[in-house]
Structures are given as structure tokens and as C-alpha cells.
């Protein structure tokens, strides 16, 4: 029986005081890719915790293997909320992160990804890496749900260990898909704008 998962979800909720909004989108167990801006170590955990329990059970966050396999505590945490670990260093052609993600999710799991690749320094969103595009291209049936995470960079900024329990807000936006024949840069710009738009709503 996994107790760490629900426990961590509770701690994350208390610590981030997150209010959750679903705008033109409802929680669902269908296969989705939640993509969000990345400002804090807490992002993946808080996003995961803000989903309803049944959705949480089929949702896996994508995270860096080099970070989450350092030490038994991190490894235990990663295992307890079923994180999908990706090698950032050893990327091979037939073993690319997108391939691994597709293989791991099968026809069941949803994903949480942070297309910026790393946490931003000042809370501003950086450019998106192309992983999201290739993911959408290989699996056009996946719903791409933009998520804006507000104020988490103040709860636990980059380079800090101790969190400050401020209030944050997580906004889920309307799902989007890759249009037929849509070029990569255009799609990535559109995806980034979808998150940016939630910031203003």
C-alpha cells in the first residue's frame, strides 16, 4: 500500500495553499498531456496533487533521472507518485525521451510535462523545447491541456531548500491539439501562448 503518495499530495496542498481552477476543461481520466510553466521543484508534485484522485492514479509526471535518482529519499518520492524518469544526458536516436514516454504511457496513462525543460530563474516563461511537438505528432489523439502555475516560484524558488507557505493558484485551460500540417515553431508558439493566456484570466 502506497502511503507516501497521498501523504505527499496532502503536504503539497497545505504548503502551496493551491486553489485549483478548471476553465473550459473538466477533470477526466482520458489520456492527456498536461503541459505547464516550470518555476519550482514543487510544480510537478503540486500539479499532480491538484488532480482528483482517480485522475491522479493514471497520471505520471515526467522528470529528470539525474535529479530524482540521487539518494534514497528522492528515489522513494519519485516511485510513490509514479514519476516517469527521463535521462537528460544519454539521449540516443531510438531511445529518445519521446519514445520512452510513448512506450511508458501506453493506452492508459496521462503525462505531466514542462516543455521549457528547466525551471525559469525569474518566474518568466522561457521558450518551449520541441518534445511536446513530437509527442503530439506521434500521438495526435492525446488531449494537450495547458496549465498555468501561479506563485509557486515564491513558495519555493530555484536554489532554495525551505519553502515559504504562500498561496498559489493552478489553472487548467481548454485542451488543444496539433493541427494537420502545422509547423513545429508555430505549434510551440501556440502552446506557449495558451499558457500565457491563462495567466491573464
Amino acid at each position: 500500500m502506497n502511503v507516501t503518495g497521498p501523504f505527499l499530495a496532502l503536504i503539497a496542498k497545505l504548503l502551496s495553499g493551491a486553489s485549483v481552477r478548471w476553465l473550459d476543461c473538466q477533470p477526466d481520466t482520458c489520456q492527456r498531456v498536461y503541459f505547464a510553466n516550470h518555476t519550482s521543484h514543487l510544480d510537478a508534485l503540486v500539479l499532480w496533487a491538484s488532480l482528483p484522485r482517480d485522475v491522479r492514479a493514471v497520471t505520471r509526471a515526467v522528470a529528470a533521472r539525474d535529479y530524482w535518482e540521487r539518494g534514497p529519499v528522492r528515489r522513494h518520492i519519485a516511485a510513490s507518485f509514479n514519476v516517469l524518469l527521463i535521462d537528460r544526458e544519454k539521449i540516443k536516436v531510438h531511445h529518445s525521451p519521446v519514445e520512452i514516454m510513448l512506450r511508458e504511457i501506453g493506452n492508459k496513462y496521462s503525462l505531466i510535462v514542462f516543455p521549457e525543460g528547466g525551471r525559469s530563474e525569474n518566474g518568466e516563461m522561457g521558450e518551449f523545447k520541441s518534445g511536446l511537438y513530437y509527442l503530439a505528432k506521434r500521438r495526435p489523439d492525446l488531449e494537450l491541456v495547458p496549465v498555468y502555475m501561479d506563485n509557486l516560484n515564491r513558495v519555493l524558488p530555484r536554489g532554495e531548500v525551505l519553502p515559504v507557505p504562500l498561496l498559489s493558484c493552478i489553472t487548467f485551460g481548454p485542451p488543444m491539439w496539433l493541427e494537420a500540417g502545422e509547423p513545429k515553431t508555430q505549434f510551440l508558439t501556440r502552446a506557449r501562448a495558451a499558457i500565457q493566456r491563462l495567466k491573464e484570466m
Partner: protein
Amino acid sequence: MTSGCFPPLWILAQADESTAIQAQTYWLLGVVLGLLALAYLAGRVLKRYPPGSLNLALVERFNHRIRVWWMMCAILVAALMWGTGPTVFLFFLVSFWALREFITMTPTRRGDHRALFWVFIVFTPLQYLLVGLSGDFYGLYSILIPVVAGLFVPARIAFSGDHKRFLERSAKIAMGLFVCVYALSFAPALMNLRLTTSAGVKWGEEDSSLPNAGLLFYFVLIVQLEDVLQNVWTRLLGRRVIAPAINASRTWEGFLGGVTSATLVCALLWWATPFRFWEAACMSMIVAVAGFAGSMVMSAVKRDRGVADYGTLVQGHPGVLDRIDSLCFAAPVFYHLTRYFFCVFL
């Protein structure tokens, strides 16, 4: 901390006066519950009116407000019944949440992170710990935040090396800590006082586990009454808005009417307190004015930040701080007046 007094005890063991709350407190509680029940019934009746004859949104807001009061009353009474410790803890939770809301609304910078950690994790709990310890540590809890935190916080920010808007940032954190934590902590600190009447006669049960629960309840009642009565007076007669840029719904008529009527009602409840009738009137008036000033100040902060409510980052939900702003400002005033005029020291 004195041991808790469990609710069943006071229901069953009326004969055992030593552990029970004083009789006056029960009467006060009875009056408040009666008023609440009346307000609830009034709300029900208003709801039955045919649509169109009344402002529905107004009725809904009235009913919502009454629900919030029932909840506040239930929580406060439960904590008071349980004992001093739980009451102090309840106020700690309220303070903590209010401070979260305040700092969330206030822009701080990366360099403030460590200072904020101290504010939340060290100073806030420590303040309430000192208030809750048995034996009155007034000398410590009255200086912890103005002196210790007041000097420590800017120093910690300076050490982190970010000078941008330094004065503004340290002032914002200091004000949040002062209003949400320091000021409010004087409400549960009332439990530490050894009350006398103004003639110097001891007031209250000697070895009661809940010495001043009634007085704390009385204080909350004054502030809440003033808040609702000024609203009523504004709706009835309100013409001259005090400061339109700060709060468009607070008028001079509401202010005067609210303070006067709250003073009158609470003066009539003088028998629940160590005050005489005219003393109770003076205390209520001062507390009501302080409470009104509190909500004006917190409105000004909200306008400065360009938000309607503290609530959350999502607009439209009033938060904890919106409900306690007047309590925060009135608590230290009430505490110190009581301490000065109606209290003995060992």
C-alpha cells in the same frame, strides 16, 4: 497551559462550579445564539418573498453572512470550551492564514525568501507560543514582533544582498506581521489577564480553566456587531462616503450609526463583563471605532494592490483577512485598556 475543560463536563456537572465557565458567560452566549437564531429566521422569511419584491443578491449576501457567523460562533465557542490552549491555537491558525493572504498579495523579491521563512516558521508560531504559555509572558510577547522581528527582518533581507525597493519590501513584511500576527494575538492574550472591576474587586472564578472566555467572546461580539450595523446604517441613510477612493461603501452615517448602536447593544450586555454600564459603553465605543478604522486601513491596502479581496489569487472570494481586519485593529486596543484599568498583577 491549564488543562482543558471538556464540553460534556459543563453540561452535566453544573454543581461543580470550579471547572465551569461563569454563569454570566452562558447568559451572554445565550443572548448571542438568540440573536443569531432571529437573524437566521429573518433570512428564511426574506427568502420566501415573491421574486422581484426584494433585491435577491442582497438577501443572498445576508444569508451567507449569517452562515459565516454561525460558523465563527461555533468554532470560537468550541475552542473556548476546550480551554486556553486550543483557543490560542485557533487564533494562531487564523493569523497564519491571514498572513499568507497578505504576503501573497504583496510583491516580494527573491531576496526576501529567507526572511519570509523566518516570519512564517519562527516568529508567527513563537508569538502564539508565548501568548499561550501559562504565566503571563507579556514582557516577551509584547516585544517579540515590534522589536525582535522588526530588527531581524530588514537585517535578513540586507544580508541576502538585494537592495532594490529595500525600504518598501521590509515595510510590507513588517506591516503584514504586525497586523496579521502581533495585533490579532492580543485577542487570545486576554485569557492571561487577572481581571478586577474598576473598584479593585476580583472578578471571575479563581481556579476556572477558562478565566476570561466571556470577555474574549464579548470583544469579538462588539467588533462583529459594529461591522454589520454600520452596513445596515449605510444602507438606510448612507450619503456621505468617507473616502471614495478607498472604500465606496463606507459612509459617515454608517460609521456614526454603527458605532453608536454597537455601543448601545454592548453596553446593555455589561453584566457579562467586569465593567460597569458606562465603562462597558466607553470600551465598546473605542473598540468599535478601532474596528472600523481597521477595515478602512485594510481596504486601503487592497486598493493599493489593486485587488477586491484578499481571498486567493482568484478574485471574487473574500478571504480570512477580509473577515478579521477589524478584529486585528481592535484587539490590542481592547487588551491594553483592559490591562490598564481592569487588571491586577501579582
